[in-house]
C-alpha cells in the first residue's frame, strides 16, 4: 500500500491510512501520558513523516505498520527528551539500521487471544511496558516485585506472544 502510495503520490490512499491510524496513535500516546493536544500534534507529525518518507519505505525490511510504529515511538521519545532534557539528547538510540525482514503482520485478533492466554501478571507486565512506557525498574517499584522477577515474567510473556503471533520462538 505504501509502495503504491509513493508511486502515485496518492492522497486518497494516504488518507485511508490516516483515518485508521490517527485516532489509535492518539489514544496510544494518551495512555502513555501525553496530553490530548500533544498526542494530536505527534499524530500529525507521525503521519506527515509517513507521507514524506513513503518512497523510502522498504517492504523487504518491515511491514508497513511496524514502520509506522517505529516512527511514532521515536517521535514520542524525542519529545520526552525535549521536555526533560536529561540524557544523550544529541544522540538517537534508534539508529536507522537495515532491519531484517520479519514475520507477517498479525491481525489484531491474534494479539488479543495471545494476551488472554497469558497469566494475569504477565499480561499486566506487557501492558505496563507498552502502554505505560515503564522501565523494568519502574514496574518493579509499581508492583512491589524484584527486578529479576519483572524480567523473567516479561521473558516468558515475550516468548509466548511471538510464538502465538506466528513468529519463531
Amino acid at each position, binding site marked *: 500500500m505504501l509502495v503504491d502510495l509513493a508511486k502515485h503520490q496518492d492522497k486518497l490512499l494516504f488518507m485511508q491510512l490516516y*483515518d485508521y491510524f490517527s485516532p489509535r496513535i*492518539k489514544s496510544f500516546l494518551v495512555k502513555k501520558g501525553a496530553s490530548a493536544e500533544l498526542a494530536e500534534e505527534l499524530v*500529525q507529525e507521525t503521519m506527515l513523516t509517513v507521507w514524506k518518507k513513503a518512497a523510502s519505505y522498504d517492504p523487504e525490511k518491515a511491514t508497513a505498520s*511496524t514502520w*509506522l*510504529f517505529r516512527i*511514532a515511538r521515536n517521535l514520542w521519545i524525542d519529545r520526552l527528551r525535549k521536555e526533560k532534557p536529561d540524557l544523550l539528547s544529541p*544522540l538517537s538510540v534508534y539508529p536507522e*539500521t537495515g532491519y531484517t525482514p520479519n514475520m507477517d503482520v498479525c491481525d489484531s485478533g491474534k494479539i488479543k487471544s495471545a494476551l488472554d492466554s497469558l497469566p494475569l501478571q504477565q499480561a499486566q507486565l506487557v501492558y505496563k511496558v507498552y502502554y505505560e512506557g515503564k522501565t523494568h525498574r519502574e514496574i518493579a517499584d509499581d508492583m512491589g516485585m524484584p527486578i529479576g522477577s519483572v524480567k523473567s515474567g516479561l521473558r516468558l510473556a515475550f516468548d509466548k506472544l511471538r510464538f502465538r503471533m506466528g513468529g519463531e520462538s
Partner: protein
Amino acid sequence: MSCNHHPDLSTLLNYGAGSLSDALAMVVACHLESCEHCRHTVTEAENIGMALLKEVSADDMSRNARDNMLAMLDDHAIEPPQVVIETPQKEGDIPTQLRPLIGQWFADLKWSRVAPGLKQFILPASDGKLRLLNIAPGTFMPAHGHSGSELTLVLKGSYSDELGRFRAGDVADVDPDVTHQPVADTHEGCICLIATDAPLRFKGLVPRLLQPFFQL
C-alpha cells in the same frame, strides 16, 4: 562478528517498545549494529507494539485535524527515496553510534584513573549512567552488585566473570541480585561500555572507598 551473549529478551522487548532508559538503550543500539539475531528480536517486539496499538480504542481527533493534514500534504511532496550510500566506514574503534558524542578513537579520550589498572570515561550528558571502562590485562574489577539494571557491552578485548567469557560484541545483562567480579583476560586488556539505571554497589570496604572516584 557473531555474539555469544545477548541482552535479555525482556531488555529487547522494552527497547522495541520504547521503554528502556536512554543509557541502557544506547548499549542495546551499539550491540544491534553487530547482531542480526537481536535486530530480528527487536522487530518482533515492535510488531507486538503495533498489534497492541491497533487494539486500543480509537480516540477521535479534533475536528480540524483531518483538513490540516490534507493541507500539509499539499505543502509537502513525498521525498525521493533515501538511497543508503555505503560510505566507507571512517577509521576509528569507537562504535558509530557514539562517535557524534565522543569522537573516533579510544586513545584520544581523556580517561581518568580509578584504581591501578582501571580507567574510566564517563559519557557527557549521561548523568553518570553511561561510562566506558578500560581494564588493563589481568586486572580484577572490584566485586559488585547492583540496585538496578546493568548492561555491559564489550567493545575491545574480553573479560571473564562468574557468568562466563565475554568478547567484543557480547552483552552482559545482569540482574540486580547478581554479584560479579570481572577480570580482563587477554593481553590487550578490555574496553567496555556500561549502562546502569542505578548506582553500583561495591562489596567490601576498599571498593566502597573507590566509589567517589567512580562518581557514583
